[in-house]
């Protein structure tokens, strides 16, 4: 649909800009300010220009945290996106199953994130947790507080359990919006279920899947509360993701300067990758008018 051209539309957009900018601009400027200062104590700081940026780029702990973050987000996206779509495909279209499915799916999403961490601590403990004791009774000495692999498994499992419903809900929305005639045409053309999925359903879900992918990428890349509560970044440094590292710097050591610098770089990485994802997904269906 061709849009009407009218700059007065700005009036409709001003409230949104006001509310968002209010919380966005000043804190952002403050953080940029921190990133160029050496904050020795409250009220005492020295301007250091780009020193922090140079330092930070050589910080090996930062690099490690960054790689761990990429690995985590990558794993999570690879599991959540297909799984979420599969669930959405399996969900009922009519009847009492619909509200039942929707409510059940929404349950993990509604739990505060620190509580999620706590639930999974309990759940995976061999003494009081269902999962923990079940795995241990199978002979696997599972302990996410001691072994990095177990910690990673628990974290990925927790994350997938927590957020796959978001992908499913969005994918379900996209699927319900496909008119029935497309399925009829596919049947007449003798298309297999796979062909129907690949040529009709997937292309038509492009919009929702873009939102799902971007949201999940951003949120998993920025993740903090759940892993912090579950492992605190350990054992050792094995699950110290980027956010956890930044917070350690900022609040633990009160090194606001480098923390702010890393945060800005962090932000730029997320921005760049999101932009790339967005453009790729828009282009993949170029020429398509839904």
């Amino acid at each position: 649909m061709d849009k009407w051209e009218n700059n007065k539309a700005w009036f409709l957009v001003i409230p949104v800009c006001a509310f968002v900018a209010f919380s966005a601009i000043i804190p952002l400027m403050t953080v940029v300010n921190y990133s160029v200062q050496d904050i020795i104590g409250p009220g005492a700081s020295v301007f250091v220009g780009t020193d922090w940026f140079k330092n930070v780029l050589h910080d090996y702990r930062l690099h490690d945290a960054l790689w761990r973050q990429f690995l985590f987000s990558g794993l999570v996206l690879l599991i959540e996106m297909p799984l979420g779509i599969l669930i959405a495909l399996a969900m009922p279209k009519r009847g009492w199953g619909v509200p039942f499915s929707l409510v059940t799916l929404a349950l993990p999403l509604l739990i505060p994130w620190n509580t999620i961490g706590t639930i999974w601590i309990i759940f995976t403990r061999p003494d009081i947790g269902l999962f923990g004791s079940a795995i241990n009774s199978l002979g696997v000495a599972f302990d996410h507080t001691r072994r990095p692999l177990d910690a990673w498994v628990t974290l990925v499992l927790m994350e997938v359990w927590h957020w796959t419903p978001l992908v499913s809900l969005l994918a379900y929305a996209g699927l319900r919006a496909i008119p029935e005639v497309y399925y009829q045409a596919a049947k007449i053309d003798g298309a297999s279920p796979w062909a129907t999925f690949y040529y009709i359903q997937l292309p038509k879900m492009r919009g929702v899947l873009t939102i799902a992918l971007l949201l999940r990428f951003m949120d998993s890349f920025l993740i903090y509360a759940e892993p912090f509560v579950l492992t605190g970044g350990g054992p050792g440094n094995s699950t110290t993701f980027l956010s956890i590292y930044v917070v350690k710097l900022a609040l633990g050591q009160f090194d606001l300067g480098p923390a702010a610098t890393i945060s800005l770089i962090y932000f730029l990485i997320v921005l760049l990758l999101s932009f790339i994802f967005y453009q790729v997904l828009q282009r993949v269906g170029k020429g398509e008018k839904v």
Partner: protein
Amino acid sequence: MKGKKKTIGLAIYFGLLFLPIYWMINMSLRTNADILASFALFPIDLTFQNYIKIFTDASWYSGYINSMIYVSINTLISLATALPAAYAFSRYQFMGDKHLFFWLLTNRMAPAAVFALPFFQLYSALHLIDTHIAVALAHCLFNIPLAVWILEGFMSGIPREIDETAFIDGYSFPRFFITIFIPLIRAGVGVTAFFCFMFSWVELLLARTLTVTDAKPIVATMTRTISATGLDWGLLAAAGVLTIVPGALVIWFVRNYMAKGFALGRV
């Protein structure tokens, strides 16, 4: 035949999904001592002690009330501002529109931690610390962009001819918007309301930073269960179960909107 396999797979997934939640309910109905003493698949010495503690201790239940207040305020503000904005993005072409849209999304891209202190300073300067409105406003930062994004998708699924017909028939813009347009995207509104509620309800960092006691949300109160004797698992589990309840009620209310919205939206 195919239908059966799908249903079984779905049932297995839902079952697995529910397990940690079931476990939490299990814990919540036992005392802490009981939990640590023995492992049990379901509560043998069932007790409501934990729940009673929460309902009678002001520092606990006020947490729930505070959360409900600022989340509701935030959802209202987000919806009210996002609706006209989404309409503008959907129907109009204006200077900088694509950039503005992307800028809105970028507000979800920054790691919260370091921003906590500047947020505190900003809201302090405005004497808004420890108020519900502070948290509601702060959450607008990420909820409004999401609301605009989702609503725009649903709105673009409604043909512009409907707008044009209404204007020709003499409807003023506010009247058209409220009596005709919003009912058409009522479903999209339901979905957006749910997501705004959800993201605001579970947000921890800003909610804890900007409040002290008066507006302390439940998410912050729950971190208090760490005592000298270690975590009180039973109490924590009960609090956890109770945090699901308001959200579950919200979805229950909008369930028909969501199912229908899922049939009308283009998103």
